[in-house]
């Protein structure tokens, strides 16, 4: 795991250096060195994505070729609402509710670093759970999508610009595959949708060429 000096040094490498770590807006490097910890605090961005109430009985967490509902095939942004919260304003997360947020910082990891994101204990003790899919792969580029849940008993106000999570970084053996971060990334939180999984399709008995899963055939 990189220590504070190594994190700062990675950010200060020349623009064209392949091992340079980019965090934009740039965090307070003097503060990181002074704390001498191993993490970098990141701030909450202004975009949120919440899930709509709908007439659907459930959401399938796989790519469902058999669904007559085209939206379900994407299973993404269309069943969510986006929200923009300006600086100085708040987003209220009620007990038991869940929302996607994003870091204000745009990260770009070199191919030699990976990391993970975790919540801040000071927030977690109030019931705010942050991030459950924590891995950040080498070459990642973009704002981190944060899964924010209130598992406490009182509504929690969160506000753009506040320190919301922290990342830890590790050195990684360089992969031979092409840099996955080449022109990718986004500034808003992404709901994401399931990727194509041929093995799962075969196991389930459906797949892109059959167009109907056995479960979808109506009984007569």
């Amino acid at each position: 795991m990189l220590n504070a000096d190594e994190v700062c040094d990675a950010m200060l490498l020349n623009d064209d250096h392949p091992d340079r770590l980019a965090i934009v807006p740039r965090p307070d490097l003097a503060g990181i060195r002074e704390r001498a910890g191993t993490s970098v605090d990141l701030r909450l961005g202004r975009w949120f994505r919440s899930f709509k109430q709908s007439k659907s009985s459930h959401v399938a967490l796989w790519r469902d070729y058999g669904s007559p509902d085209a939206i379900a095939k994407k299973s993404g942004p269309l069943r969510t609402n986006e929200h923009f919260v300006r600086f100085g304003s708040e987003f209220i997360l009620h007990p038991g509710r869940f929302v996607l947020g994003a870091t204000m910082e745009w990260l770009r990891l070199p191919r030699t670093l990976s990391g993970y994101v975790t919540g801040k204990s000071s927030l977690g003790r109030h019931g705010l759970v942050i991030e459950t899919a924590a891995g950040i792969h080498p070459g990642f580029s973009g704002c981190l999508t944060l899964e924010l849940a209130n598992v406490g008993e009182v509504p929690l106000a969160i506000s753009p610009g506040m320190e919301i999570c922290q990342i830890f970084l590790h050195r990684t053996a360089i992969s031979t595959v092409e840099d996955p971060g080449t022109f990718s990334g986004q500034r808003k939180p992404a709901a994401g949708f399931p990727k194509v999984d041929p093995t799962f399709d075969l196991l389930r008995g459906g797949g892109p060429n059959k167009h109907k899963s056995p479960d979808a055939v109506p009984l007569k």
Partner: protein
Amino acid sequence: MDDHSEAASQLRLSSAKRRIDAFLEQIGELAESSFPHDDGLFALRTIRDNFVDLRGRLELPPGARADLVDQTCLHIGDQVSDYTEILGFILRSTNVRNPFELHYVIKRLITKALDQDVSLLLSSEWAFVPFTYPMSMELLPDFVLIGNAAPESNDPLVIPLAGHEIGHSAWRVFGCPVSYSSLVSDMVVETLDARPGVCAELMRQHTMDALALGVIRDRCSGHVMRQLEEMFCDLFGLYTFGQSYLFAYDYLLGPGGSSTTLNYPTDKRRFELLNAAAAELGISVDPVLAQRWTTAGMRRSERSVSTIVDIAVDGLIPRIKEDLFHTLKSKDLFPPSAEVTNSVLKSFGHNEPYCDDATLGEIISAGWLYLRQNDGLAEAEQRRRYKVLGDLVLKSVEVAEYLDRTRPDA
């Protein structure tokens, strides 16, 4: 007043009351929207307060004069009609397709350029005019409203055209119509005197010989003033947004050929004047942009006026340009720096937002240059890349806001 007339008054007044009530109910529903910035809500409240006041004016005593009732109802009808359009605009300003990150930096630009606090509504339009109310609405005199075409409202690269719309506000705030009116009149007289053939042709179109010359001069002066305002706005957009203004202009208007009216210079002519001004400002221009602009023909009956107007405008543009650039410079506003633009472009090349301070013009110009360097990013396999470019631009804009808000002296 007879019974029928009294009944008609009551009918009209109750109709007007119901129209205002429906309008106020609509405002109440809109106020529940999620506003990205306070300005939209502030506009709604201002409109609501005025319509509540209008509603009160409909409480006329029985037997009120018929012409007073009719005039009051007529005014109400006009107000409801005018401001219904604005309500739609305000509603669309809450659509999450809009790049809300632009609000702070554009407002900062306007405030600096106009030297006064303004409110800004950035929205979208279904019928793209483009829509602008340059601080000209009776109820919202301090509001600048800028609308992008609805399908492109999420694209930050077209925002430089907002520079033109802000220019209309600057034209008023700087007092240009008054400053230039005698200059315009003198130039029109001089131009007509120097072209007796064209002047004679124009005189033949009028029957009232004694007044003809005055009418012709006034008409030409009106068109010259309108064209100067349009060119002033283009120059304002060019000065503040640099080459990105030219790219956005070409994107939306190229290759020209839209209908020609006497109140607008032709698209081609505007572009030529912009190119010349860019050279003066040291703004590099992609030579491809200047290629193959066309112009629609002018109606035969207007050609003589057009000749006079074009010559007069040409004669006055240098003065307008010099005054505008001098005024903006005195307000500590400068055209985008090529050096900073290239640094931003380099960041985009690394797939990163720009991490230092840059103006909106520098960031958007870098976005356009990136697009040009990568074959326009219009093919199906490049769509994702185009979207990422938009996000990099908007994140860079947000960084500029972050740096401004967190400056030690902020």
